[in-house]
């Protein structure tokens, strides 16, 4: 036994177990996230939401999945056989693979063996995440093309443009993080956010601000404080990457019926569905990892290994909630406006912010505060630029002609 163990190595077995655990956890998470979304959005729309299967309708997603699984495996006549079958897999697998670099906790010790709670601590973790995100495009494009139908084709064309454009700004928004953390490894990025902001001497000598800045000792040293513009760009691009409202153009129901997956049914559709929700969780988890300190949080003496996991989960749920909230609130963007936002606003903004970060990053200990100040200015400018679209300036209100009533 131990000979075999020596041969294949403990590391391999640990990696295998981790992969299986992450995969199983993801599938379970997806079921819960779908239920969560349906419940939350139902609440926002004054409905009840799923309530039939299991307590609070928790098993509804499972029931839906089983139904999809047993449906006829239907393929339209004009479809390209192999590409049609490949597309759903390509849409789901990269989303799941992306989780390999998401650290959900610190290091666990089993005797001599130390196990990091991350699929794989790559030194190019962010690049790997971006690469997996890019692969996702193929699934959607292939689905649109291989269906041999017109609406999916339109959806495929839309998503090609959308995903490629927003891939750029997503990547650019992560450059400042790498600059600040000095690493591309997700684990090291989380470690760089440990602790609190610490002593700030920037405001020393200014009466009130000095008092306020002493509070920084209690604020966790997350990148969100200094990198909120990057976060804004990351999150907007992330929503676009996941094809979620208000950027759900590739599957815009009211325009393209169901977009790229119009012709898909049964388990193939379920894979697309799964892929989308895994992607939502992935983007949320990455936002937490890169900007909100990952598993960082107060650790209490009992079950000390569990707390990082809990903090990570709670933060991720908060972001999933944000996704749902946006879906309940926002109308859908139009195709050309989406391109306008991506290319003319987000990418220049991201480039500008990289420059600002690079310059300020060379400053000393108070860089957190400086970045925060710069960030506030930057957001103001960005907000002004976006709102300053000439098409929005003329607000009209209907004139009225009064009826000649007696009252």
């Amino acid at each position, binding site marked *: 036994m131990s000979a075999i163990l020596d041969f294949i190595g403990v590391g391999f077995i640990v990696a295998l177990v981790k992969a299986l655990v992450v995969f199983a956890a993801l599938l379970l998470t997806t079921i819960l996230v779908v239920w969560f979304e349906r419940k939350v959005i139902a609440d926002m*729309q004054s409905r009840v939401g799923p309530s039939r299967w299991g307590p609070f309708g928790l098993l509804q997603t499972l029931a839906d999945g089983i139904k999809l699984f047993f449906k006829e495996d239907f393929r339209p006549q004009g479809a390209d056989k192999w590409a049609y079958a490949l597309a759903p897999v390509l849409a789901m697998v990269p989303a799941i693979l992306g989780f390999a670099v998401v650290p959900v906790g610190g290091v666990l010790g089993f005797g001599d063996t130390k196990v990091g709670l991350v699929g794989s601590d790559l030194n190019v973790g962010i690049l790997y995440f971006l690469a997996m995100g890019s692969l996702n495009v193929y699934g959607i494009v292939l689905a649109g093309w291989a269906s041999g139908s017109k609406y999916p084709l339109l959806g495929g064309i839309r998503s090609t443009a959308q995903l490629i454009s927003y891939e750029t700004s997503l990547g650019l928004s992560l450059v400042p993080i790498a600059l600040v953390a000095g690493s591309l490894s997700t684990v090291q990025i989380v470690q760089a956010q440990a602790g609190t902001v610490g002593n700030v001497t920037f405001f020393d000598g200014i009466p009130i601000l000095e008092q306020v800045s002493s509070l920084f000792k209690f604020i966790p040293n997350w990148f969100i404080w200094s990198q909120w513009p990057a976060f804004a760009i990351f999150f907007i691009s992330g929503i676009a990457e996941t094809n979620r409202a208000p950027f759900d153009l590739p599957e815009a129901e009211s325009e393209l019926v169901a977009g790229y997956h119009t012709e898909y049914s049964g388990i193939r559709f379920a894979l697309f569905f799964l892929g989308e929700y895994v992607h939502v969780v992935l983007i949320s988890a990455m936002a937490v990892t890169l900007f909100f300190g990952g598993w960082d949080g107060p650790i209490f003496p009992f079950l000390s290994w569990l707390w990082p996991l809990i903090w990570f989960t709670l933060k991720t749920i908060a972001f999933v909630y944000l996704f749902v909230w946006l879906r309940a609130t926002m109308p859908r963007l139009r195709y050309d406006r989406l391109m306008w936002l991506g290319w003319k606003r987000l990418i220049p903004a991201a480039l500008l912010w990289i420059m600002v970060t690079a310059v300020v990053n060379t400053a000393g200990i108070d860089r957190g505060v400086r970045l925060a100040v710069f960030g506030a200015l930057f957001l103001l400018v960005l907000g002004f630029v976006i709102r300053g679209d000439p098409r929005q300036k003329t607000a009209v209100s209907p004139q009225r*002609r009064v009826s000649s009533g007696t009252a």
Partner: protein
Amino acid sequence: MSIAESVIRTIEDKGAGAFVESYDPAEQNMIINMGPVHPSTHGVLRLVLELSGETVLDCRPVIGYLHTGIEKECEDQTWRGAVTAVTRMDYLAPFHNEQAYSLAVEKLLGLEVPPRGKYIRTLMSELGRLSSHLVWFGTSGLDMGAMSAMFYGFRERELFLDFYEMVTGLRMNHGFNIPGGVWQDLPEGWEEVCDSIVSIMPGRIDDYESLLTENPIWLERTKGVGIMSTEDAVRFGATGPIGRAAGLDWDLRRDMPYEVYGELSFDVPVASEGDVYARYQVRMAEMRESVKLVRQVMEKMPEGDYKNMDPKIMPPPRSEMNRSMEAVIHHFKLVTQGYTVPAGDAYAAVESPRGELGAYIVSDGGTAPYRCHVRDPSFINLQSLASMAKGGLVADLIAVIASVDPVMGGVDR
């Protein structure tokens, strides 16, 4: 070759009814069928689109998928019975259908409606406008991706439908406005229910506005989209909110008052932009005006008969029939034969939620309409769709359809 030409040619080639799209691969343009089953064509509207990328080069509405022959059906009904047929045309504004028809028949008969009947009609007509605009609000929100709008709109519509059920016994297709008045009096306790509706609505409309009116995405989707000029509005015969959003200051309630609108005071919202956003604003303002109108009607509601008691037209009350031979005879005649209407023709129009809804009635002196034609605003307004959609994107087309708010039951009749 444009779609229009190709369609005309194929119809000529293959005979009427054989509508076949022609596709020329050399054109590089995509011809795509939007509808009759599509999430956002509001029923069974079919649009044949010629697309270059996502730009709509041509748009040809094809209608008739909901044709049920209601106008023809009226000819087999008595004058009273035809009400139950016309109410099914524009199924989101059943009161207005009945009202237009009843007004036309009353014109031919020279029949007066007692004040209370008129007020009840006006009350139901304004509530009907509100409930119809709520459907418009919900569906246009849904069409542009604001899914919650749909649920809010239908949530409030439920209040109205409950009230309709209380008053008429049915949630839709009421058959309530009949020639000579209304079918029955308002029930006990209608004031409380009606009052609760009109006191809820202003706050709810504020909620809708806070959701969409200043939402940047909503503005981008609607402003400058699907523009119709005032001249075009006149040329296409577009009426109602679409016409008023295009600067056509025309509202039958104010300009050709019927029922009791002359005694009520209200504003007519008019915008000049003629785009989807202007239509949104006009409809929102109209909803507020309707709430005001309902309040006025409630205050002024007179006592008295709710229908003309002319025994030749209206069946006598049940109590009369126990002691009056004439009442029994009248009842027998009206039930077995119906009443006759003097030969001639008449046109009466009301302002439905979608525009001028007119009924043109021809009588040959018999007990059934010789012809009952309805000028349905959905049908007339729909022909402006192509001119508004051309040159825009597919997403704009969706916004335009939602803003025209066609009801296919009214289009196909």
